[in-house]
């Protein structure tokens, strides 16, 4: 492994550096660069793998451990702080910035990992279904559950399957799935209040679908303010589906970025078409 050498400064070389330390600095900077690129690569892998269908848990764990390792080393190095500055600069793509700030704006003791996963709680979502997911989460209204759903729990990524996991005999499977999902959601209400509502709330498959009355949350109020019942109309539904944009992984994160500043849903027309699509899907599933 390369020796650490002197810390590399991000400001460019106006300073005079002696030859020896220059070589040392180059070696160090090369190592830092490699380490940084490895960190970036790992974070992207984690994001992507949480976008896919049923990500491979082993792979996710290994990548997450690698990220943690790098973060630990960087923290010991003291270069963690510098990375924060660098990442918060302009010119970064929104998705990277989002992840980076999420990761870096936490101290290590609070375990950057949960923040890491908070952005990528889309585990199990398929790309084309992500739009519906977003709405799905918003629609899930039960007074006790709604806040929690939006707030979500850190580390939900691992929880994806657990929420429908088999805890007891499979006769009770159907019951236990919803039960355990509900229980875990409610329990973690307090733990997740610091999370941005949009990012962490969108865990798949944990919500009951209920029509109607919005919860106390202001985001939900805004959501439902523009919705009319015409979305039950077939034509509107079909139109809505066609106009629903296909979102790639980073588009999705783009749409999350604004939510950092405001709790409102990104765009109501999108939302409506999402609802339409959701309804359509539910009809297929329920077989009405």
């Amino acid at each position: 492994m390369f020796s650490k050498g002197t810390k590399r400064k991000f400001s460019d070389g106006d300073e005079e550096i002696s030859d020896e330390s220059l070589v040392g600095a180059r070696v160090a900077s090369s190592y830092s660069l490699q380490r940084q690129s490895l960190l970036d690569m790992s974070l992207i892998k984690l994001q992507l793998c949480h976008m896919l269908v049923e990500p491979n848990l082993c792979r996710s764990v290994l990548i997450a451990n690698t990220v943690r390792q790098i973060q630990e080393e960087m923290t010991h190095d003291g270069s963690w702080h510098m990375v924060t500055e660098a990442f918060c600069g302009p010119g970064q793509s929104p998705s990277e910035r989002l992840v980076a700030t999420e990761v870096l704006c936490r101290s290590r003791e609070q375990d950057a990992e949960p923040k890491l996963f908070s952005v990528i709680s889309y585990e199990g979502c398929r790309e084309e279904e992500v739009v519906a997911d977003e709405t799905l989460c918003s629609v899930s209204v039960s007074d006790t559950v709604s806040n929690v759903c939006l707030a979500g729990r850190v580390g939900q990524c691992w929880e994806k399957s657990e929420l429908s996991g088999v805890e007891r005999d499979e006769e009770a499977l159907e019951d236990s799935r919803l039960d355990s999902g509900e229980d875990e959601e409610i329990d973690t209400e307090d733990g997740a209040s610091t999370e941005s509502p949009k990012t962490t709330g969108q865990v798949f498959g944990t919500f009951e679908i209920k029509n109607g009355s919005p919860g106390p949350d202001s985001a939900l109020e805004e959501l439902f303010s523009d919705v009319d019942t015409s979305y039950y109309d077939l034509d509107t539904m079909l139109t809505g589906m066609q106009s629903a944009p296909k979102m790639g992984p980073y588009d999705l994160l783009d749409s999350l970025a604004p939510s950092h500043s405001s709790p409102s849903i990104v765009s109501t027309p999108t939302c409506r078409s999402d609802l339409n699509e959701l309804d359509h899907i539910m009809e297929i599933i329920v077989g009405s």
Partner: protein
Amino acid sequence: KAVIPSGSHMKGWCHVWWDSLTILPVQHGRVAPLAQPPCGRASAVHTAATLRLLNLPLLSSDIISTVEFNCSGELLATGDKGGRVVIFQREQESKNRLLSRGEYNVYSTFQSHEPEFDYLKSLEIEEKINKIRWLPQQNAAHFLLSANDKTIKLWKISERDKRAEGYNLKDEDGRLRDQFRITTLRVPVLMPMDLMVEASPRRIFANAHTYHINSISVNSDYETYLSADDLRINLWHLEITDRSFNIVDIKPANMEELTEVITAAECHPHQCNVFVYSSSKGTIRLCDTRAAALCDRHSKFFEEPEDPSSRSFFSEIISSISDVKFSHSGRYMMTRDYLSVKVWDLNMENRPVETYQVHEYLRSKLCSLYENDCIFDKFECCWNGSDSAIMTGSYNNFFRMFDRNTRRDITLEASRENSKPRAMLKPRKVCTGGKRKKDEISVDSLDFNKKILHTAWHPKENVIAVAATNNLYIFQDKIN
């Protein structure tokens, strides 16, 4: 000129297939749909010849995902990504042949698992067969367990070569006879018919795994088996499908603390109370089911201390064990991590007794392999019948064999170009640096899409089955 090292299984390996009719290896998933043979041996040859003419392209559903010989070696089962199982049967040795060894023909093909949709999570459950394990044969029928990510099925494969004729109530077509026409009573007679091989699901073991099943293993008591997913191991009784015992659970109370998963598990071949499971951190735990109902506390813990000089950010990933196999004797076990195969003595926990480097030249490429995800490939490994040799796969359709006694190793390639029937395989060599000799291949020229993850060794003879993506190769050692 390549020198073939001595050791009977290190002598020439040649490609064995049917006759000179078939040059192409069987394209795995295509055997059944093309020509539905009534499953005699001659018809299998016909099928293969047809395949050669058609030269079909690769379908991802044809990718072979598991290969397993049965306990006698007479049958070879393969599972693929499309949920199909194809079983090959060894031909009886014929005196007419120059080579007295039998060849493998298609015996049965069936769809084991279908794609499912988990409505609650809105996720597809892949139909890919992750593992097949044969049960020991106890009567004329054969039984195997096949598992996808969530469900295990017990299949019965039976032959039918007789048919009853002369029913009273129905005629030969199966139509009911007019009752007024029935004037005499007769006893149906069993008449021979073309051999038919039927596969029927006898048990379905479902809803016990939250995470993806990575291993199944039949216990030596022939009554129970275990199934392992990323975080839990369950013990089943073969007759009981509505419940299973959870014997290992490494799921942390707080999932944020998850840092290790189960990667493989196997029952001891002789001691029905002992099993092992490996982890993504390169450790193996041996557990005794007599100790407690929940075997979270291991009886033995196998881990090799890390070499600090070779530590890198990838150390943990490459130490993750992808396969664990007991030796037939039950004295040793073998583990496969990304770069090496290790043989452990069950009586020594602090380090393996033997370590074999599979493709050490990849150590300097770990970053690229991490980038293209190859570093997460899960290679399997296998013992030969006498535990004197081990085999595992690599990239570029290479596979490696190691002789434990002579410490020699050989690299062979499973490819169409090199598989003239009965032609001997040429040992291959990867050039690690400097001048590349003739016939060597440089590391940068390796094709990382051609990976051999699944191999199987006949339990008694020197016959091996190698799965290269969608092709199955069967090799045997050359008879003098």
